[in-house]
Every structure is written in structure tokens, then in C-alpha cells.
């Protein structure tokens, strides 16, 4: 295939939601030594006009509202590119294969809700293929599409003029107020100036992090489970990876969506009020002033409050930790441990992992923001991540536990401990691929007890779970896990691995077909 024809075929396959052809073409171009970043850029540029939603809630004919999902194509690219750096030359191409496999299935989420365009939401969530009128018209929601996807937000020109600091302020205000065109235009103008990039990245993360629901309990539509933050992180990472000069499609994909409805700032307002009241004029220097780590007992206390307290208890506890002079990231590390304990000790229903998983990814974005940039508002984000995790735990408690869902890894402990160390990683790979959580957990526990090695273990877990297709959350959870494991200073880093093992081997998968993995295996893994 010539380079020009290959790219044209890739674009056509993507916009027609033909994910099998898109994947085959992408992989063939990669094997022909087309640069990965160029292929990813071309894919992002192709999808950019077709992933916007006018809003993330849609009015139903009965007067109620319906959630419209956030674009996940860009989340898949960011997570897969990051994972590719960590899974080796060949193994790293599995998440990349999964990313392109997903992209044509994730176009135009708004029209997928309405059964007007194919993709995984229309096919799997809304069951559009089962509708008589759609069958009569011969529509197939597994693709390919019968028409070109709609453009739901037209591209804008950059807005220039005025000082950079004033434009940054105006951009953040426009996003917060839902003025998508102004927010996007101001961003484009600032993005042209390399000197503004650090401030721009920080501002986008800030804008995303503060947009978060205070609870998902009894608020089915008015929530975003952290997607504004996750999209901001995807954009800043990918822009750095692909090059800002090549990233217009990426900006078009992410920035207008930052201001879409619903915009949820109530929790942010609460955190702001609490911090500014509790710490008066000192709140702006909490990051610089607070340096103390948490003792092991203090980590346990924070875990206990996040797992068992009411939201008001959690807010009071975070204030207490800040008054004690505890470092922001030390508190954040304990919150991540709390999330992981929830996964390990409490979550039992295979179908219940999906929404809570976003809380770990949100914590990861907050921690990346705190680690990489300085902003006096960062202490407030600790309240938000702690309340988010606590809310996931409480939301899970709304459903009675089923004794049949109880896992019993202990029954396999003796078997796992008897295996030679060299056999553990391949057996872990097999157990995750088989979704045999009892064995996978027992095997990982045996591995953790017998060696200090962790990177190959994490890579094995990530590679194994990346065999499952149609779901960019898998790659995102892997990279969040790897980053948090690397950075966590709580003294409980292995808890993060044990949670990742249970998540990988137990959570319901969107598909048990291995079409994408088969393409990866035949194209890259031989030899």
C-alpha cells in the first residue's frame, strides 16, 4: 500500500465506523514503518470533528434526561501511548492496536444514543439493532456506517490580543461558564505561543479537575465521574507526545468539550469554602508549608474514614490532616490506598467495577497536577478526590451483597505458592486472560511474597488485561495504576498491584472476543 493511499484508506475506515478495516490498515502502515506518532495524529485529526456532543445530557421525549457519554477515543490514545512506552517494543503495540480498534466505534456519541450512527454505545448499550425500524432500514450498528457522521461543533479560529495572563483567565472563565467557542478560541490563540504551554497545560488540568459531581447517589444524569479531568490529562500528555505543532485535531477533540453541559462545580465550591474558612490567609501556601508524611497508623486512619465515613466525616478528616501539616501528596497516597482496599476487600459484583474505576483515574490526574505544577488551589482537590472515592464506596453499598460473588483466593494459595517463581508470570497472564480472579489474586500474592521485583509483574498484568477489546478504560486503568504505584509513598504500594489484579481478572469485560488481540498477535507478536 502506498503511503498516501494507506492514510486515505485509514481515514475512510474510521469515519465509516469500520473498525476492523481501520485496525488492519493502521497495522499494515505501522508494519510498513510509518511512524506511530504520525498515524496517531492522522487518526485523531480524522475523528476530531465527529466526537463532539452538544451536551452530555439529552432531553427525552417524556421530559426526562438521558446521559450522553464522553468521547473515549482520545482517552484510549493517551493511555495506549503511555503504556506503549512501558510494555516494550512489541508488547507496547497491543494497547495501540486496542486504541485504533476502539476509535471507529466511539464516534458521535450523541447520535449513537439516538440510534443514528453505529458504534459500541448504539450496539451494546442502547441495543439499536433490536429496534424494528432500524432493522427495516438495514442499519447495522456494528458498522460500517450508512452515512457520514454529523459535525456537532464547528472548528473555531484562534482568539488573540490582550495579555497572556488575561487570556488565560478569560479562557478558564469561559470554560467554567460553558462558553465553548470562546474557551476553545482563547486556548488556540495561547497554544500558538510555546512560552505559554506550561501555564496552558496547568490551566486545562485545573479546569477539568474542578468539574466533578459531589455524588452519583440519586444523581444518575448530573454527574461526569471525572471525565473533564481525564480528558484534560489526555490532551496535555498527547500534545507533548505528538508535538504541539501537530496537535490541532487533539485540541479540537478536547477543549470545546471542557465547557459542555453539565458543568458541576458544587463540590469545588464546597472545597473552596472549607479551605478558605479553615485556613484563612494560609490556605494558599498549604502545599509549600505542609511537608510531613503520614505514619502507617495515620494512613490506616485516613483509609478508615474514606471507606466508612460519611462525606462530612471525610471533609472534616482532610481538614484535620492539613491542619496537622501533612503533605498534600501524602494524603493523596492514602486516598489511593483507600480506593484499592475498597476494590480488594469490598467490591464483589463483576459488573460493579466500571464507574468506581474512574475514581482512581481522577486521583491520578489530581496527583499528576500536584506533582507537576504549582497552584495555590491544589489543596482543595484533595477534598474532591477523597469525597469521590468515598462516594464510590457508598454507592456500592446501595446494593445488597450476593454471597455467590464472594471470591476465595485463599483456596488456591497453596497451589500458587508451590509453583516455581519462573512460572508465576505466565500463569498470572493465563489466569487474567481466563478472568479467573481467585487464581490470579492467589498467584499475585505468591509473587509479591517471594520477590521484590514489581515492574515485570505490573507489565504482565497490563499486557494480559489489554487483550480485552472495545474498552479504553482498561488501558487507562493500567497506566493510572503504574503511575500511582511508582509515586506512592504510603508504604502500601503492593496494595495498588493487588487491586489492579482483581480489577483486571474480575471486572466484567465489554467483549470476550479477541479480534483485536488476534490482529496484534499475527502482525507483531510472531517471532
Amino acid at each position, binding site marked *: 500500500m502506498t503511503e498516501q493511499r494507506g492514510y486515505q484508506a485509514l481515514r475512510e475506515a474510521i469515519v465509516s465506523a469500520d473498525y476492523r478495516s481501520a485496525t488492519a490498515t493502521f497495522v499494515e502502515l505501522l508494519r510498513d514503518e510509518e511512524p506511530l506518532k504520525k498515524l496517531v495524529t492522522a487518526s485523531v485529526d480524522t475523528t476530531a470533528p465527529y466526537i463532539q456532543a452538544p451536551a452530555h445530557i439529552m432531553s427525552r421525549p417524556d421530559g426526562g434526561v438521558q446521559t450522553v457519554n464522553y468521547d473515549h477515543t482520545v482517552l484510549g490514545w493517551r493511555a495506549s501511548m503511555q503504556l506503549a512506552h512501558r510494555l516494550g517494543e512489541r508488547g507496547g503495540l497491543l494497547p495501540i492496536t486496542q486504541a485504533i480498534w476502539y476509535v471507529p466505534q466511539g464516534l458521535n456519541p450523541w447520535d449513537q444514543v439516538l440510534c443514528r450512527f453505529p458504534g459500541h454505545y448504539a450496539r451494546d448499550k442502547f441495543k439499536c439493532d433490536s429496534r424494528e425500524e432500524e432493522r427495516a432500514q438495514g442499519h447495522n450498528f456494528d458498522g460500517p456506517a450508512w452515512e457520514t457522521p454529523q459535525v456537532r461543533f464547528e472548528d473555531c479560529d484562534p482568539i488573540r490580543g490582550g495579555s497572556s495572563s488575561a487570556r488565560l483567565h478569560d479562557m478558564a472563565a469561559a470554560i467554567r461558564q460553558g462558553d465553548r467557542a470562546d474557551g476553545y478560541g482563547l486556548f488556540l490563540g495561547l497554544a500558538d505561543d510555546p512560552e505559554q504551554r506550561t501555564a496552558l497545560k496547568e490551566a486545562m488540568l485545573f479546569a477539568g479537575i474542578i468539574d466533578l459531581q459531589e455524588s452519583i447517589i440519586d444523581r444518575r444524569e448530573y454527574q461526569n465521574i471525572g471525565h473533564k479531568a481525564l480528558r484534560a490529562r489526555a490532551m496535555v500528555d498527547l500534545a507533548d507526545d505528538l508535538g504541539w505543532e501537530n496537535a490541532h485535531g487533539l485540541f479540537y477533540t478536547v477543549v470545546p468539550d471542557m465547557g459542555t453541559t453539565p458543568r458541576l462545580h458544587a463540590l469545588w465550591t464546597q472545597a473552596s469554602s472549607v479551605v478558605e474558612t479553615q485556613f484563612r490567609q494560609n490556605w494558599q501556601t498549604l502545599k509549600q508549608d505542609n511537608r510531613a508524611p503520614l505514619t502507617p497508623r495515620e494512613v490506616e486512619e485516613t483509609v478508615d474514614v474514606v471507606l466508612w465515613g460519611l462525606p462530612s466525616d471525610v471533609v472534616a478528616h482532610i481538614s484535620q490532616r492539613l491542619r496537622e501539616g501533612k503533605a498534600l501528596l501524602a494524603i493523596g497516597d492514602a486516598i489511593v490506598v483507600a480506593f484499592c482496599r475498597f476494590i480488594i476487600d469490598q467490591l464483589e459484583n463483576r459488573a460493579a467495577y466500571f464507574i468506581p474505576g474512574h475514581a482512581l483515574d481522577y486521583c491520578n490526574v489530581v496527583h499528576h497536577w500536584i506533582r507537576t505544577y504549582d497552584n495555590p488551589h491544589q489543596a482543595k482537590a484533595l477534598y474532591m478526590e477523597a469525597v469521590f472515592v468515598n462516594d464510590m464506596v457508598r454507592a456500592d453499598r446501595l*446494593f445488597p451483597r450476593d*454471597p455467590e460473588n464472594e471470591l476465595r483466593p485463599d483456596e488456591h494459595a497453596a497451589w500458587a505458592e508451590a509453583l516455581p517463581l519462573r512460572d508465576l508470570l505466565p500463569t498470572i497472564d493465563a489466569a487474567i486472560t481466563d478472568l479467573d480472579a481467585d487464581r490470579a489474586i492467589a498467584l499475585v500474592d505468591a509473587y509479591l511474597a517471594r520477590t521484590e521485583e514489581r515492574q515485570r509483574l505490573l507489565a504482565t498484568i497490563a499486557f494480559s488485561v489489554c487483550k480485552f477489546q472495545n474498552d479504553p478504560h482498561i488501558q487507562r486503568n493500567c497506566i493510572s495504576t503504574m503511575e500511582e504505584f511508582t509515586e506512592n509513598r504510603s508504604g502500601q504500594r503492593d496494595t495498588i498491584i493487588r487491586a489492579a489484579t482483581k480489577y483486571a481478572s474480575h471486572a466484567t469485560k465489554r467483549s470476550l472476543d479477541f479480534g483485536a488481540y488476534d490482529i496484534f498477535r499475527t502482525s507483531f507478536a510472531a517471532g
Partner: protein
Amino acid sequence: MGLQRTWTLHNTLAGALEQVIEQLEAQLSEASVGELVEFVDGFLPGRTASPEWTASLERLAEVMWSALPTETMEAVGAIYASREGPMWQPLVNKFSAEHGQRLLGQRWRPAGARRAAVVLR
């Protein structure tokens, strides 16, 4: 508060908790099967007061298995088994005879203890 005073408080609360458990067991024993099912239904997501209320169903089921006669528990189990749909499956399994036997088999009563150990929440 000194250690002696704290331990006194612990023992006083243990006595009070024992009385609450005895009162709960007595009330459960007096309830009809219909009243028991109506009460359990109030723990489900659509009717619950809070996630914490639903979570406490685990402890209520344990008390029911330890305090109520087998035929009562069989009748409760039969009502849930007759309900259709996956949302009822946790209750079908929670009130199955096999689960009841497992729970009763797990009860731990240390030497010298007045009653089996109690999990609070």
C-alpha cells in the same frame, strides 16, 4: 479517661449491646414471614434510607439466621426465590439454606463467652 474507666465503659456498652440483640431477636421472632419480607425489602436500593442502611442488611441476615426457626427462614427464602429478575439474586442467595448453614458454621463462640461473637457493621 483512664484505662480502668475505659474498660468499664466497654463492659457497660457490651451489656447494653447484648440487651439490644436480645430485643431484636425477640422482635424478629414475633414478626410474621410477610412482615419480615416487608422489612428486608426496605433495604433495597429503591427504598433504602441510605447506603449505610442497605449495608446493614448483611448483619440483619446474620441475626435472622441465628435467631429464627428453620421453617421461617425457608419461608422467607421461598418468597425471594419466587421473584424474577437479577436484582433479587443477592437476596435469593442470602436466604438460601446453603448460605444459612455456612453462616451458622462460621459463628465463633470463644470459651467463656456468653454468646457468639457479633460483627457490628
